[in-house]
């Protein structure tokens, strides 16, 4: 406690995120927190509980579900909603469900329909005017230039050339008719900060982040986990060859879109160690960024992807 005057970087990041969340609650009419059950969502939820304690966070959690998440993710989602005392809203795009859209037959259409369209539909359905998201500026190049309060048109489009200047910690939350706001409280966190915060605060995360022996198969050059073999067999049209391997996941999305890595890291420090020493970046496991060359994410966002 010799130098209590200087806060650590994690204390400053935490404080900034809490400040942002409180500003939104004070100024928005109908906020919601997007919850994808990944590690960033876990940190977001923890920060929200800190920001409003002893009150429960005064907004619901929204999970835009694709029906293709790992079973462990659904389990943790339901547990955390109960524990935090928050309302959990689960939305599945009925059109995608009807057409049985899946990542194997439909490629990037899977993301478009379930996630991009699903998110738009859910926000419109409940009339949310501000949605918290866990995106970070270090994830991807176009994110590095996005504001913390990022405005979307009535059709949920993003205009990178026309962003409001954000000075000091003053956020202008005033919307025009039909506009909504995406708010990114952990914009300034890096992947390492997220891990360290989870470590220091014992934030519950999905066990798939830790290595374990799991059933895997190879598909289009990547290593994947067979989370629901009968369903997998149905959409693939064949029974993939299953090998038991010690694997874990660096990011969690839909199980066939998320590549696994072979690993033996069973504890958080080991996971962090592996992350720091690894030489491939976090999002590489995700197929989504590679669409449309270098500008993949920017194009997706202009269309309304989170």
């Amino acid at each position: 406690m010799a130098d209590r005057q200087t806060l650590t970087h994690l204390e400053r990041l935490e404080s900034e995120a809490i400040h942002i969340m409180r500003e939104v609650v004070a100024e928005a009419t109908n906020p919601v927190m997007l919850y994808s059950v990944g590690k960033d969502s876990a940190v977001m939820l923890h920060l929200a509980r800190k920001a409003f304690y002893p009150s429960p966070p005064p907004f619901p959690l929204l999970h835009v579900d694709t029906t293709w998440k790992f079973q462990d993710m659904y389990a943790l989602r339901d547990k955390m909603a109960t524990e935090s005392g928050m309302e959990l809203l689960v939305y599945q795009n009925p059109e995608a469900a009807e057409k049985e859209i899946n990542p194997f037959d439909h490629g990037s259409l899977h993301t478009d329909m379930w996630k991009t369209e699903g998110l738009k539909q859910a926000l419109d359905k409940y009339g949310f005017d501000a949605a918290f998201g866990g995106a970070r500026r270090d994830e991807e190049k176009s994110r590095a230039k996005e504001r913390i309060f990022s405005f979307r048109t009535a059709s949920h489009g993003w205009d990178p050339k026309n962003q409001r200047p954000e000075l000091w910690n003053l956020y202008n939350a005033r919307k025009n008719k039909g506009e909504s706001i995406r708010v990114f409280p952990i914009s300034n966190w890096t992947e390492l900060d997220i891990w360290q915060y989870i470590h220091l605060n014992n934030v519950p995360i999905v066990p798939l982040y830790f290595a374990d022996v799991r059933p895997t198969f190879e598909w289009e050059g990547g290593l994947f986990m067979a989370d629901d073999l009968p369903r997998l067999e149905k959409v693939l049209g064949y029974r993939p060859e299953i090998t038991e391997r010690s694997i874990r996941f660096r990011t969690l999305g839909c199980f066939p879109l998320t590549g696994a890595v072979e690993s033996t890291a069973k504890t958080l420090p080991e996971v962090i160690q592996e992350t720091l020493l690894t030489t491939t970046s976090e999002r590489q496991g995700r197929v989504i960024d590679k669409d449309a060359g270098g500008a993949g994410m920017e194009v997706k966002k202009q269309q309304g992807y989170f």
Partner: protein
Amino acid sequence: MTSGDVIYQTEALIAEDIDAYLEQHQHKTMLRFITCGSVDDGKSTLIGRLLYDSKMIFEDQLTALENDSKKVGTQGQEIDFALLVDGLAAEREQGITIDVAYRFFNTEKRKFIVADCPGHEQYTRNMVTGASTADLAVILIDARKGVLVQTRRHSYLCHLIGIKNIVLAVNKMDLVDYDPVVFDAIVKDYAEFARSIGIESFTALPISGFKGDNITTRSANTPWYKGPTLVDHLETVEVLSSVDADKPFRMPVQWVNRPNLDFRGFSGLIATGSVKPGDEIRVLPSGKTSTVTRIVTLDSDLDQAVAGQSVTLCLADEVDCSRGDVISLADNPPQAADQFEATLVWLNDEAMLPGRAYWLKLATQTVSVTVQQPKYVVNVNTMEQLAAKTLELNAIGVAEIATDKPLVFEAYGDNRTLGGFVLIDKMSNATVAAGMLNFSLRRAQNVHWQALDISRDAHAALKRQKPKVLWFTGLSGSGKSTIANMVEKRLHAVGKHTFLLDGDNVRHGLNKDLGFTEADRIENIRRVGEVAKLMTDAGLIVLTAFISPFRAEREMVRTLMAEGEFVEIFVDTPLEVAEARDVKGLYKKARTGQLKNFTGIDSPYEAPEKPDFRIDTTREKPEDAAERIVNELLGWAPTI
């Protein structure tokens, strides 16, 4: 030990003792800085280099970078670090950075957030944005070019925003053969300029972002340079939040936490100073005092909290305190005032309009504010103070501002949180300006509101009526005066005390000094609004007939009046019809260019979105419209 060794040792530590590494990382502090310079000074290359040298680039990113470098790079077959940080697709094609981008890297001692700020003149607003959260600024200079106009502009902006730590990075030293004479000449030149604008000190470094000289490791190419490397310097300068912790305690209240009847806490981010349970505090602007009982967090109560922490405070007494109030040390509170001198940086394509009401957001306070014509604007290239009527995009000026409610404040130089603000356009909701309060004006402190014994209710009661403002708006020649006149005659006939303020008539007296520019039109309406307000205080029913083309000013007048007192009547005559009538011959003059700024021709009319009355004069006769207004008014308020 050089920084290269540090990186190697860090990697070894991660591999051998991850717990020790995490322990070290956990205690790192954070420094935010900006890089600024002209278009080709090598900002993106320098940042790319910092990321590369601190191992923040992964193998797959490196492969992509190598491919991109060959395809679109500007460095031949060598790695073009700039491609790492030039984010948006549009920018990559144009080869320029057009928006603030934020980057992250770590060293053994600190985490860094870099705001990459563009060098183009039209993007001053981005630089000010990046500078507003920075502890330090790195000003890049191309060693071949020396101090340029942009260098001066960026330095001035950094100084204006209050950045105390300035690093002068003389870049591309490799292209001048690491010549100390070149370096010394540039430093001397810059020192002279820095002194002239009030920069007290700066640190100068000879570097090459492209080759890596003096970035993380001391360069063998500059044996004559004895100072620190760039990273050494960044790791050791004092961060802003520790400076703020030594100031008196202030916390703007963001949100009142009230989960049940037994708990009432005040949540906020501590702007300056520190707080402990038992501290005597004062709530502003009310001035009520109390004692802090608890500092509540999810983990446990705290013994102390300091500047930069987001906390929830509980107080011993049931004091009135809500969002926008400021909790401060009891015996050293900030002041409240409603008139100030402020420095403004205009950030919007639409120029500032003197007299127009904007929203002002300062900490958690949002008030309505009007800005006077600027005292002067600063030419950021020459630092000259010039006369100006307005502030255009990227202009920096000093002006007096007046708020509609007292603002708890401190001068920006003493407290960024209680002195820095943004202005928001009430119609477009755009953030149009950033501002810094310099000081409050004495007249605001000394002119007090005189309490009078005969109240406005007493005036109205004697007349047996409820005061109203019937605000007629519409194009020239739409029929405002005609209908207003008929309404007044009818009200007068039933014994109501009325007064009609007519646009043309007022311009013969009270407003004869005003013309028809946008600014003068706003002032015209402001004065009429104030006069109408005095008349309603006297108990009168006021009718006004003014074009009053701007929504913002009509809204401003509405907010002057008591709830329900302002009745907006839109005399809706299409332009073709009004022009065809052309009772005063004005449209003809406007069309032939003899009359400038004529509403509907070369000056806009913003129609009311939800008027209380809309009169379509192509369908409704003036007599019928007047009848309808009077009947409905009498029906609304039987005592009229």
